[in-house]
């Protein structure tokens, strides 16, 4: 009897070997992937050192290669995207969970998911041909009007701008924020909600004072995941931001992000430029990997996994 069990266990060795082997193989691919970026960036890091991060001018082809404007534009567009997408996304998640009638609920979720299925190049095209005229005619003059043309809404209104990139990004990260925050809000215990209602709180008070605070860890995670997406989005941003690496003087300035610069300049790059672009890729990898790792810790904690 014992003999048989041992026999079947040993003869299943190929199966376990196959599973472990595949996992190991893909682990090796990931290592190679990280190594390819580090390896290509290394000459630039050795030559330019810290100036790669702190340098204020970026001129492809000849140098200098200072990524500070790109980093600032990346953070700025992401911040604009979050300012728009977080309130709208949280409100949509609450509406989906508590307000939309049961029979419309799955159709509504599907619509939000369709928003995520649209390829980013299509959002870029849409931003180029629909949002730019709208910005030029309506939004930019309006924003400049209410601030009297002062910062941050000063300067020429060309349409192509960090503001436009932020708006396009906000639409692209909305499905992420809605889907994840819906998941983490849906695990808020029913007792808490009913407790709030029985104490006489109105429905909106329960949402703002009970539901949102108890889902706060997971919501932070959802926001961080959205931020991670916005930081790394490439093509749509490259199409609408104006590809002009400068430190923005207003939200109407053109700009260039880390990812969009890699996309637009990689084709003509050689030597130092290629290596400097790989250094941008490395910065992008470090930033997005840490944001995503943090986000996962938060959302997993919120959903009770270890």
């Amino acid at each position, binding site marked *: 009897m014992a003999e048989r069990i041992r026999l079947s266990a040993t003869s299943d060795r190929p199966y376990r070997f196959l599973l472990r082997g595949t996992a190991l193989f893909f682990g090796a691919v*990931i290592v190679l992937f990280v190594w390819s970026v580090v390896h290509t960036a290394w000459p630039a890091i050795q030559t330019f050192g810290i100036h790669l991060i702190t340098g204020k001018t970026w001129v492809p082809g000849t140098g200098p290669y200072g990524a500070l404007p790109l980093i600032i534009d990346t953070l700025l567009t992401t911040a604009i995207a979050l300012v728009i997408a977080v309130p709208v996304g949280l409100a949509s998640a609450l509406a989906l969970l508590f307000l*939309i009638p049961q029979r419309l609920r799955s159709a509504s979720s599907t619509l939000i998911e369709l928003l995520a299925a649209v390829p980013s190049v299509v959002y870029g095209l849409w931003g180029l041909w629909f949002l730019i005229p709208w910005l030029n005619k309506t939004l930019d003059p309006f924003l400049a009007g209410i601030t009297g043309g002062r910062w941050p809404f000063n300067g020429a209104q060309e349409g192509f701008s960090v503001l436009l990139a932020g708006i396009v990004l906000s639409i692209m990260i909305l499905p992420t924020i809605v889907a994840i925050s819906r998941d983490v809000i849906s695990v808020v215990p029913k007792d808490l909600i009913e407790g709030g209602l029985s104490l006489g709180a109105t429905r909106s008070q329960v949402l703002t004072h009970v539901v949102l605070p108890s889902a706060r860890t997971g919501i932070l995670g959802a926001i961080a995941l959205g931020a991670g*997406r916005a930081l790394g989005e490439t093509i749509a941003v490259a199409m609408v931001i104006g590809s002009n690496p400068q430190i923005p003087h207003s939200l109407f300035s053109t700009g260039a992000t880390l990812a969009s610069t*890699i996309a637009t300049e990689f084709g003509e790059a050689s030597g130092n430029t290629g290596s400097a672009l790989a250094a941008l890729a490395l910065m992008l990898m470090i930033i997005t990997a840490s944001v995503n790792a943090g986000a996962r810790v938060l959302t997993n904690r919120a959903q009770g996994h270890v």
Partner: protein
Amino acid sequence: MTDTLNFLPPDPILERREKIQRRAAKTLRRRTIASRAFLVMLVGAFVLALVPLGSVIFALIEKGVSSITWNFLRTLPHQPSLIAQNDIGGIGNAIEGTLVLDGLAGLVAIPIALLIGLYLAETLSRSADFLRRVIEIMTGLPSILLGVFAYEYVVVPMKTFSGLAGIVALSVLMVPFIAKASELAFRGVPSSLREAGLALGARPSRVARGIIFPAALPGVITGVLLSLARAMGETAPILLVIGASGTWGWNPLHQMSSLPLLTYNYSGSQYPSERAAAWGVALTLVVMVMVLSVGSRLVAARMRRERP
């Protein structure tokens, strides 16, 4: 004796309760209105969130449908010239390229990803946990980084842009998504089924093949189709590595054309005819992506219905 109640000192708790009740009654109306307004705002935000989707779909149809003809879908592109600025030909080879890239990348990624999903679902170990974390982080990394990877390891050694480099980038992009989705599907199989198989004397490999995999199939298919849809629309990684092509050819060792890349290139073209055609290319791409992602739901829903 009956009067004693009147001589009792006023009860502070009762008084406070009455005061609160009076105030609550007074503010009830205001609170109800404020609450209603807030709830209406939430639904309004949800509707606002759907406006861009509507606008994108409207734009695709309004500007894209007119360029789509039978010839547009099956002929080769044609460089516009000064005398024939409107003759841009078709996108046949870009459709072919998109299907070849996505299909071959899927062929590479699916078996690897399913085995990793099985490994993650079946193994309890530190290394499995670590791999799971790394794969989760991979799903959030910008896809353009995979373009840099494929450039370094395929384009540089081959000394030419190629469809193969695109396939490498897209398959590494797909593996984490499919692995994650299939791990969830495999974990969703009731452990009673698994244990029943083992108790009948089946080896773990037989249980995986005969019980876990069939039971998890709807979830696996959904994950696979969604990842194929996502990879099909990716522009950034292939922009760096597949080059461009104006001819037919499914051989991935050569340069290739593809719909997302063509949309990107046409959108910035100097020719108005190409800029207009960008919408037709984008519409074709969106239809193909939507067929996959809507199809994934239908397949999964049908399979769940058929097998209770």
